């Protein structure tokens, strides 16, 4: 266990700049939004805003999913990492956990900024309840786990063959993108008793004069995203130990 924490500590120190960079980017995004939002309709401003945040969280996840191992390969530190008495799964899990911390911070920061901004009466955006904001960010957080682990395992698979690694990597990526939504639906149907949350309550929307689709989030999906991500990460760890050549 202590080995895992050593690796995690190293990851977090190494990611300091990324965390800082992504936070600054988020601030800039808000600044831009503030400048532009006055011209938009209330409802569409909110939707555009949530879209920007979710998309940036997902893009960050994909970039880190490929990047956290790629940087080790590029700097050849993968040789150091794999010479230490730590298993492949410890390496994979520490990277995943460091990402979870990173994206958790990012989402929390986004939520605070977002809610704070949207509560300002003087701004003509919207006035949704904290709960709506919270659910949007929580959903983005859990979704990001999958957006991270899919490219992560695709990268590892690509490294486990001497030939045609890139092709294999892309194939795995496409296969997972195809199969995971299907598994997701299946899994959610298996657990109908788990609670669903309305992100935007229709009555609240009507009251504010907003026209947003009253989307919902559900616990089953959160569980599914967590489980499938952990499974992919552990599988990556196994491949890293048994198949990947460096």
């Amino acid at each position, binding site marked *: 266990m202590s080995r895992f924490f*050593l690796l995690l500590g190293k990851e977090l120190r*190494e990611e300091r700049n990324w965390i800082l960079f992504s936070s600054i980017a988020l601030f800039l995004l808000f600044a831009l939004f503030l400048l532009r939002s006055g011209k938009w309709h209330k409802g569409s401003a909110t939707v555009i805003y949530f879209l920007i945040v979710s998309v940036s969280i997902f893009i960050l996840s994909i970039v880190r999913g490929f990047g956290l191992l790629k940087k080790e390969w590029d700097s050849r*530190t993968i*040789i*150091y990492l794999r*010479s230490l*008495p730590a298993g492949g799964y410890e390496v994979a899990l520490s990277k995943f956990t460091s990402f979870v911390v990173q994206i958790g911070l990012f989402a929390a920061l986004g939520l605070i900024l977002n809610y704070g901004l949207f509560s300002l009466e003087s701004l003509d955006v919207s006035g949704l309840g904290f709960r709506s904001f919270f659910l949007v960010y929580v959903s983005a957080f859990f979704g990001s786990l999958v957006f991270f682990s899919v490219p992560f395992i695709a990268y590892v698979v690509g490294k486990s063959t001497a030939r045609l690694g890139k092709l294999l990597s892309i194939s795995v990526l496409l296969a997972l993108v195809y199969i995971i939504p299907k598994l997701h639906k299946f899994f959610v149907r298996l657990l109908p008793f788990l609670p669903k949350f309305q992100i935007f309550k229709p009555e609240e929307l009507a009251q504010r004069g907003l026209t947003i689709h009253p989307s919902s989030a559900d616990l089953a999906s959160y569980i599914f995203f967590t489980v499938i991500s952990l499974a992919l990460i552990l599988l990556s760890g196994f491949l890293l*130990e048994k*198949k990947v*050549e460096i």
Partner: protein
Amino acid sequence: MKAALEIKGLHKRFPGVWALRGIDITLDAGRVMGLVGPNGSGKTTLLSILMGHKKPTKGEVRIFGMKPGKRVREITSYVPEIDHLYGWMTVKEMADFTAGFYRSWNPSKFRELLEFMDLNPSFKIGNLSRGMRARLKLSLALAADPKLLLLDEPLSGIDPLSRDKILEAFIKWFQFGEQTVIFSTHIVREAEKLFDYVVFLGDGEIILQGEPDELRNRYGRSIEDIMKEVYR
């Protein structure tokens, strides 16, 4: 006592080329094995397989009775030829990070080594010269007090002073008779007196192996000259 190293019929194929074609080595614990041969003869591939970084295509490998993997890495330190340390860390950070992984880590030995090597703990690794990084790599490996030490070309491509320091540090801190080492090199002259076993590798095969004094006696030449002879 289990042999430190047992390799039987080891083959390794890379796309389009056999890097190792039938390696057999048995090495007792406590030996200093020189693994000599020109670049591209398969030395690095062999060491990578021992670390589990590369997988054998065919054949058996046992290190103290164990297959390459995490348990082997617990008792093995590997010093590759390339720079594999984290450039963003300082010497001290690198040592603290490494120390946590080894039960056998010896902090006072590391301090002595740093002083001997003229390495300042607050130096950033990315700013060190090649020779200094080579010194640090060996210091980290020795301070972990491993049962097996794998040195891949520790003397090549570095300044003469660093080369001397590395040889001296090895002689001073390596526990002959207790620790086992595989010392891969194509620069034989400086190191040949240290070996008590030599394996000549050429084109993925063992050309010659034996105790250096027996080979000197048999050929009437130095190991370096025997090497030049067999690789002609």
